[in-house]
């Protein structure tokens, strides 16, 4: 452990001081995993704005990349070995588990296994300890768990089983994760568990294998196939996680924008032409391109480029959730951001986490905490 976690007792007291007390109802104490990732950071930012949230503890192996005001960052190792201590010490009542790797190109299979499977296992072990105060768990999973096969239905509902057993490491690891979620939910009926399965996420900022494909000079497709894709805007992802948090949604939910777009149309929306890859032995024949780093197409996306995948989003809607973006609008938001970046360059926030500065703002008596704002 390079850094020690901040003293838990102090953390609690100061955070309470910092906030106006909401007279109605209990205030939530939330643990967010993957604070250094895009999702964890955005979720924590959004939670900070919620006065009903008393404490936000963020875990990650890396430092936060977004500016946070009152979230307490704890550096942990990838599989959360000290997690039960943190849960015990901070007495969190909610865990938002965003630290799951969905993009297998970003790391080795082993590292992904550590984060997804072992990390989740330890997380739930800590949450189900006898002294645990956890009453609500929200997990950010992916529609990758449905797989992709020719015999698939056009729309997967939350209860549709996948057509073929999972073969790719990412899908297998997510299956294992969901298995832990189910076991945990079964063993702890007093805990509200929400499992959100997100479709292909796209938007202004996030980089995924699909957004990389769509930014190539020509967009790869597979000859003779024009599968239909569903997208969900990154803002809707955050919105749905908060929706699940605020309403204690129970069960499994697909999160995906309305509508399915043919891949050719997605490329057209991005102003790109498609170039056909061979339909048989795609992996083998494109391996030279992979070696050159031109094409970075994970195995599970080969299937997707043939058969696509649609998920039914009615269940979440029936609980009152409203999407801001359809699939088309999500792609348009993405391409508008790409156009802007092309002109002004990578105008990303140049925020850097400085431990001393953050500690000063959170815990120094010199900082006045009576700032009130909507």
């Amino acid at each position: 452990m390079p850094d020690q976690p901040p003293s838990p007792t102090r953390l609690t007291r100061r955070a309470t001081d910092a906030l106006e007390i909401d007279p109605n109802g209990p205030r939530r104490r939330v643990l967010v995993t993957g604070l250094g990732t895009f999702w964890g950071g955005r979720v924590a930012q959004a939670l900070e704005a919620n006065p009903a949230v008393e404490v936000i503890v963020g875990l990650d192996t890396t430092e936060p990349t977004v500016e946070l005001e009152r979230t307490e960052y704890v550096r942990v190792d990838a599989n959360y070995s000290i997690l039960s201590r943190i849960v015990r010490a901070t007495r969190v009542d909610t865990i938002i588990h965003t630290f799951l790797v969905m993009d297998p190109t970003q790391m080795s299979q082993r590292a992904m296994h550590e984060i997804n499977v072992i990390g989740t296992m330890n997380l739930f072990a800590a949450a189900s300890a006898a002294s645990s105060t956890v009453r609500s768990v929200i997990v950010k999973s992916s529609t990758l768990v449905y797989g992709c096969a020719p015999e698939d239905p056009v729309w997967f509902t939350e209860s549709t089983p996948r057509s073929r057993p999972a073969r790719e490491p990412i899908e297998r690891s997510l299956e294992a994760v969901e298995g832990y979620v189910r076991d945990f939910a079964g063993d702890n009926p007093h805990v509200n568990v929400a499992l959100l399965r997100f479709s292909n996420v796209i938007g202004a900022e996030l980089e995924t294998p699909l957004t990389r494909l769509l930014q190539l000079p020509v967009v790869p497709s597979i000859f003779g196939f024009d599968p239909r894709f569903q997208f969900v805007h990154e803002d809707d992802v955050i919105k749905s996680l908060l929706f699940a948090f605020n309403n204690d949604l129970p069960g499994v939910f697909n999160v995906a924008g309305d509508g399915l777009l043919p891949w050719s149309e997605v490329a057209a929306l991005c102003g790109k032409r498609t170039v056909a890859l061979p339909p048989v032995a795609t992996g083998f024949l494109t391996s030279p391109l992979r070696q050159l780093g031109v094409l970075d197409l994970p195995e599970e996306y080969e299937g997707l480029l043939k058969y696509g995948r649609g998920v039914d989003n009615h269940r979440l809607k029936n609980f009152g959730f409203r999407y801001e973006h359809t699939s088309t609008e999500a792609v348009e938001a993405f391409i508008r951001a790409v156009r802007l970046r092309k002109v002004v360059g990578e105008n990303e926030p140049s925020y850097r986490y400085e431990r001393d500065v953050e500690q000063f703002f959170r815990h120094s008596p010199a900082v006045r905490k009576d700032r009130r704002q909507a």
Partner: protein
Amino acid sequence: MEQDDSDSKQSPSNQTPGTPRTPTATPAIRLDAAELLNQEITLEEALNHAGSGAGHGELVQLPQEEPRNPDALDDRRRSDVNEWGRSEHMREIARRVYDPIYKHWFRVEWEGLEKIPEGGALLVANHAAAIPSDAPVIMHGIETKLNRPVYGLADNFFRTIPVVGTIWNRLGGLPAHPDNAYRLLREQDQLVLVFPEGTKGPSKTYSERYQLRRFGRGGFVEIAMRAGVPVVPIAVVGAEESMPTLFRVPSIARALGVPYLPVTANMLVAGPLGLVSYFPSKFKLKVLDPVHFDVPADRDRYSRSRVMDESEAIRDRIQAALYTMLRERRSVWFG
């Protein structure tokens, strides 16, 4: 270009799909929508809050996009491919190309088209010809005569063939998955065409013509029961002679990974062209009385024996209708 992306927006060719009739929310957890809206924190608020300054460092952010005009809800779609992969535009082209074949080659005649009810219905027909000629005839006929789209469910094998699979899908073909049928029938009141014989129908040889195979495991009856729609049996005469199979070559079929590999009379007559050309047999189609099942919809399971009985009864009726039509047929080519 028209589009039909979400529930509220559908192309005219798709009749009132609408929202599902069966909300999954249980009463105990159904929350007041207004209450939900109040509790919810929008992302903008969150971002504004985060950006409005803890005081360290200026947060440099890409300029936020203008809030969307709530009236401008129409997606600017580039194609009219709908949620099922069907494109009315492609269908229109196909109708124009196929119409002369339908009218002048097969000289299709329908009987009892008026029996196809309003709303969702599961069309069930006998299946024949090495490359089935009955599906396009039925779909074209109903689309042109009743001006309603027909979705054809077929073996998943179709979907794995490059080009063919995509075109098939754009023309209204779908993999035969119960979920697809249920959603089309129950939630969108569409017409769905299935061939319960599956590949056993088109793979039979000429000597077995008009002898219906087993109707699967009665899955089609179960779907119709669950969706609460009638089954409309259709007897098709003419498809068998349009591309008769002389014999099958199972070993090559296995090697190629295809469901069956026929040697057809068309191949003997026209060589390789025989793969794609039909004999001009006269098509006659007879729509039989719809079968309504007097059971509640949306059950998880239905009595197996009841399902099999209904399935067998429908099969018998189609078989009987075929025999009647064959008794009256004077010529394969002229009807």
